[in-house]
């Protein structure tokens, strides 16, 4: 008969595992943070942290509206300050009845004041913390503080944090801002040949004032993705908007989709809308006399999705040719606009030029990387655009008035 002692010993040890004592955390004792904002407290160097915490019972019951949750809000929003982010967050525990948990946080909003001062504390704290995941979205509050963004009831979701996360997830549709998660922000922050860019978010009046419709509780102000926050090292140095933001995405090769407005043939005051489809960008560098020159080659399709004018006397092939020409010009203008805004005005390499030249000319990079920031504003860029319009919605001819 075999000796049973090892089995008996293991059985006696098993109860040690069952309790899970040290890490036992019941869900009803946790405060699940959905969004967090980081500001500089007024008139001090202290951090002000605002956490949007889900109230699952209310949120799940359709709270905030007239559903099962009654008039209760689906989120509880609270702020606390501290000399460090960690201290501010610990101070939240003074009045929140539950233990703060970051594992489900969707968005980090950095207040403009913090971003202009230094984003190091935010990047450090939220990437050092094992609860937070690197796929958490990160944005900069523009023209307002992070607290206002986090406390505003915005979007169609019960949880405003989820609405902001959805905005970022689908940011490629308008193509006028970027998508940035903590992983990308941390990489851009740490890498020597890249600077940080983050999406900018602001509050903008997009809904009818509250109370106009029965049951409408959303505020008039909605969170809106607006432009791109540009950093030099650890500090925010400015924002770029609309055309320049799209141009920036072109140069970085990150544009997936957008709408470009062109003037109608023969009707300069009227517009056409072309949706950018299947864009492809090739950025190459060349060293000419120790100075690098970049060449951006864009090859893209566009779909003519709207024509606000009647185009007499031109056939579809002529319209296509004219639109393609304007489309290519429009793209080049966007790129030039980004070059002006960023390279000339802000002087910080967020085009990934340093990143590309490091890979394309590693020897040159090794000897010149320390002077790259000084060289960047003077770097020349050549742009060439190949643009095609293979579809005009489901039309096959221009919008012409024809006799019956």
């Amino acid at each position, binding site marked *: 008969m075999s000796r049973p002692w090892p089995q008996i010993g293991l059985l006696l040890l098993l109860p040690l595992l069952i309790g899970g004592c040290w890490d036992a955390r019941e869900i009803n004792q946790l405060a699940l943070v959905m969004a967090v904002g980081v500001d500089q407290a007024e008139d001090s160097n202290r951090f002000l942290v605002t956490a949007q915490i889900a109230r699952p019972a209310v949120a799940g019951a359709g709270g905030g509206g007239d559903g099962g949750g009654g008039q209760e809000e689906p989120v509880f929003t609270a702020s606390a300050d501290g000399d460090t982010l960690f201290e501010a967050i610990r101070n939240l525990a003074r009045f929140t009845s539950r233990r703060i948990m970051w594992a489900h946080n969707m968005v980090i909003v950095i207040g403009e004041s913090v971003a202009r001062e230094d984003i190091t504390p935010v990047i450090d704290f939220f990437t050092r913390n094992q609860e937070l995941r690197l*796929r958490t979205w990160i944005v900069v509050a523009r023209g307002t503080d992070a607290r206002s963004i986090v406390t505003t009831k915005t979007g169609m979701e019960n949880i405003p944090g989820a609405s902001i996360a959805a905005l970022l997830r689908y940011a490629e549709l308008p193509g006028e801002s970027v998508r940035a998660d903590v992983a990308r922000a941390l990489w851009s922050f740490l890498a020597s040949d890249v600077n940080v860019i983050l999406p900018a978010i602001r509050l903008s009046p997009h809904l009818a004032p509250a109370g106009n419709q029965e049951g409408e509780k959303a505020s008039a102000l909605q969170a809106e993705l607006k432009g791109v926050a540009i950093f030099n090292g650890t500090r925010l140095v400015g924002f770029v908007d609309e055309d320049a933001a799209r141009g920036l995405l072109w140069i970085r090769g990150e544009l997936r989709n957008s709408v470009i407005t062109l003037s109608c043939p023969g009707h300069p005051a009227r517009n056409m809308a072309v949706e950018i489809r299947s864009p492809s960008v090739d950025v190459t560098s060349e060293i000419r006399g120790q100075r690098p020159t970049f060449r951006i080659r864009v090859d893209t399709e566009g779909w003519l999705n709207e024509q606000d004018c009647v185009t007499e006397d031109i056939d579809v092939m002529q319209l296509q040719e004219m639109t393609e020409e304007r489309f290519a010009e429009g793209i080049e203008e966007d790129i030039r606009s980004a070059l002006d805004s960023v390279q000339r005005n802000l002087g910080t390499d967020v085009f990934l030029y340093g990143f590309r030249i490091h890979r394309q000319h590693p020897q040159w990079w090794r000897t010149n990387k320390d002077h790259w920031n000084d060289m960047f504003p003077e770097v020349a860029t050549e742009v060439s655009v190949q643009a095609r319009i293979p579809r005009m919605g489901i039309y096959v001819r221009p919008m012409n008035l024809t006799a019956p």
Partner: protein
Amino acid sequence: MPSIQIGRFQAVTILANLVYGKSLGFTAGVLARRVGNDLWLSMLIAFATGALVMIATSYVVRAFGSTTPFEYIPRLAGRALGKLLLFLMGLLFLGAFITSGITVELHLNDFLMTETPLVIFVVLYTLLVLYGAFLGLEVAARLSVWGLFTGLMLALSMVIGTTDHFWFDRLLPLFDHGVREVLLASLIADTDVAVAVAASLFLFPYVHKKTENQGKWLGLSWLGLGFGALQSMAWPIFEVAVLGPEVTAQYLIACMQLGRAAELSIYVHRYEMVMMILFSFGVFAKSIVLLYFAHESIAAVVKVERLGRGASMTVLSLLSLFPHYWLVSDRQFYSLFLETWWPTLSLPIAFGVPLALAALVVVRRLMGRA
């Protein structure tokens, strides 16, 4: 000839799992701190180096057939030197067992059970591995097959979950830190591969149909190394291309950060517990094999037959708890240990002993001919 018999494919999976585990995150992090985006090249070179040294181990295996290293090493190297070599191999396997245990323990303690005292993980993991080693190599072999499967599934799920963020340019430029630095850094990755190389020497006598497999051992060893590379190499490549070398360098367990960044659509956007389970089988099987070989090697030197295998294995495991806890209790020191001390201590044994044995076999043959 040992009475334990394991299948050919089981042996291959054991070798595959022996290179698995620490290499995904700990070694990758150390390499990223040394050679940045070239970390995957260093790891690839380490696998190639291991494959070359395996030629020497298979040569020794062919020379001695079914005889165990515990018998032929003292015969080949002389009684005293042979015992010393066996004792050193035992210490190597024990050290590798400790580092494999720490791999699992720190994954759990840093990410999933942060409040649980580390000593609990150390003691429980050691006891579990002890139980596995007590059950023997056949159990470890069966677990290894499953471990290889789960390791491949884990790699596949990570690849699928992070492909959207894969940026090939981050892998470039090649040899950015210089060929010499990349080669030197590959020595750190060699520590994972070399243990499998050394273990292949000890594993062969347990494989069934020895006469038939003796000549095929090099191919089988390479196959094991190949499977090990298949389940391991995706990680450093994706760590660089998805997270970036700078982010990989920032963390002690870079693979966990990559795994946690994987999203299988927006519906399965986090599955770190599942990942941890898939990861643990292979590492657990590896730990069992290493503790088993550590015990057999040391027991062959320190005569402990009177104690019985179970008791001597328990004593060895209990003794290992002290260095085990000492290493794991300070993460900064452990990182430094992996980068400096461990390669210095382990590589001369793991590569050196098989190469020395192969050289002795060559010398003996030449002398015999003379």
